[in-house]
């Protein structure tokens, strides 16, 4: 066991998979000798060679095409899109091509691909670096979407994603890369995709969150505990497909729920979670399910992040509305 940051856990997962499966290829803009703009691929080219870990020209769409072609030659590509705001350049390769490969060939051809990409606010990035665009991906049949919030989860989920025989979008929150360390086993291990994790147990209210909002929700739960409220925090971990079983079991226990996301209200996946709860557990609900989200504007100018991004205070406020409904 070692104390790792989330980015170290990601590097570790990539190393494990490069070692275990010679078909795994890691590539993107500056992921080779440079080790990635966030050091996620640090040392990997040196260890595994330029044939396995390599840089590409600066063109996201081309990277998408490269990924598809390599998958057709039996490789297991793990490309990187430097910031997820740049996904628009490669939407066709992802949604129009990769997601559909198995279906359009009637199961004859698959696309065992994991696209890694950082996103998320709170670190004053320039324009189009921090946008939460996961909702675009979850609405595309054929893709799985994973968003880890801890070093331990990041490693196990990334290894599972790489081993999955269908395309996975693996989104890494910038603020969580180095914000804390956690015990992470040195050996390979997996965490099943599509499984949520109860990060804190409680009986009065369920909070469903993912990414950086898991930590804000845990902070909120602490604050609410001081007021004698017992709050359960469920980290969704995989946001497509959702872990319906865990979500519904939690709501049936607590009778009240809040869904928290960093994305704007009209984006993200909170609406999906609310809809699933109302379809499946409305008779358990003591109050409507409310959402904590960002406002429906374009992602803020860096200096406005603090007033725009949802935080623990917003969560406490909304949680109280639900608790006292």
């Amino acid at each position: 066991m070692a104390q790792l940051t989330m980015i170290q856990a990601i590097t570790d997962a990539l190393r494990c998979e490069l070692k275990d499966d010679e078909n795994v290829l890691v590539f993107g803009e500056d992921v080779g000798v440079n080790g990635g703009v966030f050091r996620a691929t640090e040392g990997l080219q040196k260890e595994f060679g330029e044939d396995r870990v390599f840089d590409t020209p600066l063109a996201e769409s081309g990277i998408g095409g490269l990924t598809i072609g390599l998958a057709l030659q039996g490789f297991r590509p793990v490309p990187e899109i430097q910031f997820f705001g740049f996904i628009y350049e490669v939407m066709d390769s992802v949604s129009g091509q990769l997601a559909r490969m198995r279906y359009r060939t009637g199961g004859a051809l698959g696309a065992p691909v994991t696209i890694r990409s950082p996103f998320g606010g709170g670190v004053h990035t320039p324009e189009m670096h921090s946008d939460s665009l996961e909702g675009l991906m979850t609405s595309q049949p054929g893709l799985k979407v994973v968003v880890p919030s801890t070093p331990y989860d990041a490693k196990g989920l990334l290894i599972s994603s790489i081993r999955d025989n269908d395309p996975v979008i693996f989104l890494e929150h910038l603020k969580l890369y180095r914000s804390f360390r956690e015990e992470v086993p040195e050996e390979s291990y997996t965490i099943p995709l599509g499984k949520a994790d109860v990060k804190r147990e409680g009986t009065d209210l369920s909070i469903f969150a993912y990414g950086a909002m898991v930590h804000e929700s845990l902070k909120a739960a602490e604050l609410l505990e001081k007021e004698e409220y017992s709050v359960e925090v469920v980290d969704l971990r995989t946001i497509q497909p959702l872990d319906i079983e865990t979500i519904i079991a939690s709501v049936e226990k607590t009778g009240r729920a809040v869904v928290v996301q960093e994305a704007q209200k009209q984006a993200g996946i909170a609406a999906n979670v609310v809809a699933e709860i109302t379809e499946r557990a409305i008779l358990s609900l003591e109050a409507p399910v409310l959402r904590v989200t960002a406002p429906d504007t374009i992602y803020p100018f860096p200096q406005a992040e603090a007033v725009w991004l949802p935080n623990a205070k917003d969560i406490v406020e909304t949680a109280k509305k639900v608790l006292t409904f």
Partner: protein
Amino acid sequence: MASQKSKQFDPVANLHEIEEKFEMFQILNEEGEIVNEDADPKLSDTELVELMSRMVFTRILDQRSISLNRQGRLGFYAPTAGQEASQIASHYALEKEDYILPGYRDVPQIVWHGLPLSKAFLFSRGHFIGNQIPEDVNVLPPQIIIGAQYIQTAGVALGMQKRGKKSVAVTYTGDGGSSQGDFYEGINFAGAFRSPAIFIVQNNQFAISTPRELQTAAKTIAQKGIAAGIPSILVDGMDPLAVFVATRDARQRAVNGEGPSLIETMCYRYGPHTMAGDDPTRYRTSDTDSQWEKKDPIVRFRKYLEAKGLWSEEKEAEVIEKAKEEIKAAVKEADAAPKQKVTELIRNMNDGDLPYNLQEQYEIFKEKESK
């Protein structure tokens, strides 16, 4: 300020110099005469007859497909008549282990590469069985997103290079497609990785109704290869021998590790863009049509082979008869394909276990289908 002309560098002269480099490569003229003896691939008699047979077969396939489409027995269909040299002679230069990434008009190439004709018809009708490529056939289903096949080709070629294969990835787009970003990214990536790819642009003069001149100020599409730093050539796309040689040479360079090439085939489609209501008389004159008909690849190749005593009316009639029979049998086979079920479409989404949402929907549709 007075304009200063640099003596060392004249951009206008430079452009003209580049444009002049892209003269059209031709071996067989419209009269079926060899005009470029040095470049003649000297195919054997059997090979020449086989190439002609495939071109005639493909012309019949086009005629029958149009008529089957009109009868409602085919769906989406993009006519190919006029492009036989460009499509069939380029394919004739390939080997079985080469991988083809076709556009939506490039069904003939994947059929000659091994896709059963019945599957090609099921593709046209919209049935997933049509796209279930047999395991030993190295092709993708026809690509609808113009340009996507180019970037994917760069990837397949890089994959072949990494596997140490002596094969190439080959892709096709049209003149309109050369305006796409993915067109440029595809040739540029393959160039940067020196991957074994052949990029073919079939310049059939029109992208639906938009003439080639409206796509770009570049005098040729072939010269776009310069932007990627890769060899490129403008070929008479109505000349089967020239197309064959250009593709064969590109393939040779690719398997020798010399990287990708771009080939522009100057050709024409006699029919509409697709059978979905396009009317070429709105944007094309019958004059243009008849000018191009004089260049017909089958007419000139027929003249060439007849002069060599390799082809006859009887031989051609035999090929036509065979084509009609095979097409008839393939339609029958396509008719026999079972109707698609939602449960099958769901099952084809994933490898392994279905995610919860699809699992639930699978059960719902299984119930419906059992009634």
